[in-house]
């Protein structure tokens, strides 16, 4: 066993020396390889972080949301429904929610206006709490500059800014304007006692299905959305976009593989001569293959490390500047936030499979061809 280890170490040492001798060629290969890995790794790291983000956001979302449907379209729901549902066992709390969209003609953005579920969170009358991208898109000149919203030409409603939201959960709060209930109803001219939808929280997750079923019987026209469904939709959406990115990157992997195979089969005269010498002085075909595998392994490992680290920096330190728009979605308001850094073993393994495997597959046959050179050819 120790002799096996020593043999591997000696081969690795020789390989390192050999790599260092052909520095320019190998650095070039390494950089191209690392770039391919960088693209794929950025896509998977970014999508994984987005999925995590969505999970974090949804963790605080209500378990079930009840929406009223009229002609199959979402409509306001009367407040007396709350009392009806309150009787069902297992429902921990039930609240009517008020939220809506506002199209800002000044810059073409869509804001989400909302009344916080917790009354203590609501801003005082005439004030608003705003998401982090609003000051940016409205180019608010100073920290406490008031917000003016215009519903029709000539109309102007003023809100003072009570607070700006931090960018911790920017993906969903970026375009948010929080108002108190009275201001909200006045702004949208809503009658009393209607809500946009109703949020339920349920303590025991195993009871969600039964409760949903009971409410369904009580309110046959309503649509019931569970948190799990939303989570699934997010997961699917981000995974799908990631998959598309990886598939596209697959083209670059393929190009690289062809390049690597070309490189490995077109050994230079110098390298062919070296392998001939090694075979002549007593190296076995297996030794040469092991040495070449070390070479491939070291290059792959280096490129994998470099590519992944660069992708990590790209995604978490530079907000995935290169293709964030593809993965996040298209909107006038891009969330501006730092993703929580995180690395996922499964994604890394998958990444390894996707990038290193094709490289190995592409180079092993050329390696074998070189390694089976006749040992006596240096004498001819």
């Amino acid at each position: 066993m120790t002799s096996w280890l020593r043999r591997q170490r000696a081969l690795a040492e020789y390989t390192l020396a050999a790599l260092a001798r052909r520095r320019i060629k190998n650095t070039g290969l390494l950089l191209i390889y690392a770039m391919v890995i960088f693209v794929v790794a950025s896509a998977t790291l970014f999508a994984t972080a987005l999925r995590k983000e969505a999970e974090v956001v949804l963790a605080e979302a209500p378990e079930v949301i009840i929406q009223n449907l009229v002609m199959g379209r979402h409509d306001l729901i009367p407040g007396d429904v709350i009392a009806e549902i309150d009787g069902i066992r297992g429902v921990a709390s039930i609240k009517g929610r008020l939220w809506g969209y506002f199209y800002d003609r000044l810059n073409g953005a869509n804001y989400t206006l909302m009344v916080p579920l917790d009354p203590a969170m609501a801003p005082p009358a005439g004030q608003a709490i705003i998401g982090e991208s609003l000051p940016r898109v409205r180019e608010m000149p100073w920290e406490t500059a008031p917000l003016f919203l215009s519903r029709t030409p000539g109309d102007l409603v003023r809100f003072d800014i009570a607070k700006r939201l931090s960018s911790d959960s920017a993906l969903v709060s970026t375009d948010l304007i929080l108002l108190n209930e009275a201001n909200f109803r006045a702004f949208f001219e809503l009658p009393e006692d209607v809500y946009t939808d109703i949020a339920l929280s349920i303590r025991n997750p195993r009871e969600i299905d039964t409760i949903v079923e009971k409410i369904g019987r009580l309110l046959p026209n309503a649509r019931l959305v569970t948190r799990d469904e939303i989570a699934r939709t997010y997961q699917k959406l981000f995974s799908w976009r990631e998959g598309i990115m990886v598939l596209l990157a697959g083209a670059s992997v393929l190009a690289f593989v062809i390049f690597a195979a070309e490189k490995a089969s077109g050994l230079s005269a110098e390298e062919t001569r070296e392998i001939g010498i090694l075979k002549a002085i007593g190296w076995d075909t297996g030794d040469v293959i092991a040495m070449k595998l070390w070479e491939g392994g070291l290059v792959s490992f280096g490129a994998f490390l470099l590519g992944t680290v660069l992708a990590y920096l790209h995604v978490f330190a530079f907000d995935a500047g290169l293709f964030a728009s593809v993965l996040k979605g298209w909107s006038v308001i891009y969330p501006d936030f730092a993703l929580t850094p995180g690395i996922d073993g499964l994604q890394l393994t998958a990444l390894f499979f996707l990038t290193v495997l094709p490289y190995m597959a592409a180079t092993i046959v050329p390696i074998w061809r070189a390694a089976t050179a006749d040992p006596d050819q240096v004498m001819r």
Partner: protein
Amino acid sequence: MISVQSVCKTYNEGRPSALTALDGIDLEIARNALTVFKGPSGSGKTTLLSIISCMARPTSGRVLIDGRMVSGLPERFLTLERRRTFGFVFQRFNLIRGLSVLENVLLPATPLGGERRADAKRALARLEMLGIAGKAGERVEFLSGGEAQRAAIARALINDPPVLIADEPTANLDTELAHRFLDIVSGLRAEGRTVIMTSHDPRIWAADQVDRVVSMRDGRLEENEA
């Protein structure tokens, strides 16, 4: 020590370009002797050398080393046999450029999994004995012809093989260096080693140190001189 029995070697068998390099060779090589194969180029002496030294397999016939049949072995085990028995010095020395003398000398020991430090110590001792220990750290491109050959000899001996194989060792050396080479070979024989070489250098055939000259022509043995 090495016994060659009716060995034939045909290259490109079954094709129009087929070439019979060896045609029924029978030969015994004595232990601790210095044997030289001579003959014009194309006479098959290098092919015979490579078959004796387990580098190539004969198309037919048998090769025995110390009574062990080696001619039918799979390549992997042929290599094992070769490592254990032979060290090689080639005509153009075949050192690997870009590596130091010491690294070159250590190459045959690399895949064996021996103790690295002990290997290096042996290598340095051998370089010392050959008078080029001072060049151990130098890259091989910067060596003179004689130094390169001595580095190649040190490399051939790193695994302590009982037999040294040399292919046209003096072809690129002047007379003085050729004599130095023969002196080194005598030293090796004093250590108990057997030496086999090919040469068309008359200085070698005539040298006192040579025990036996085997003359070849067209893949057959011509005569033996004592």
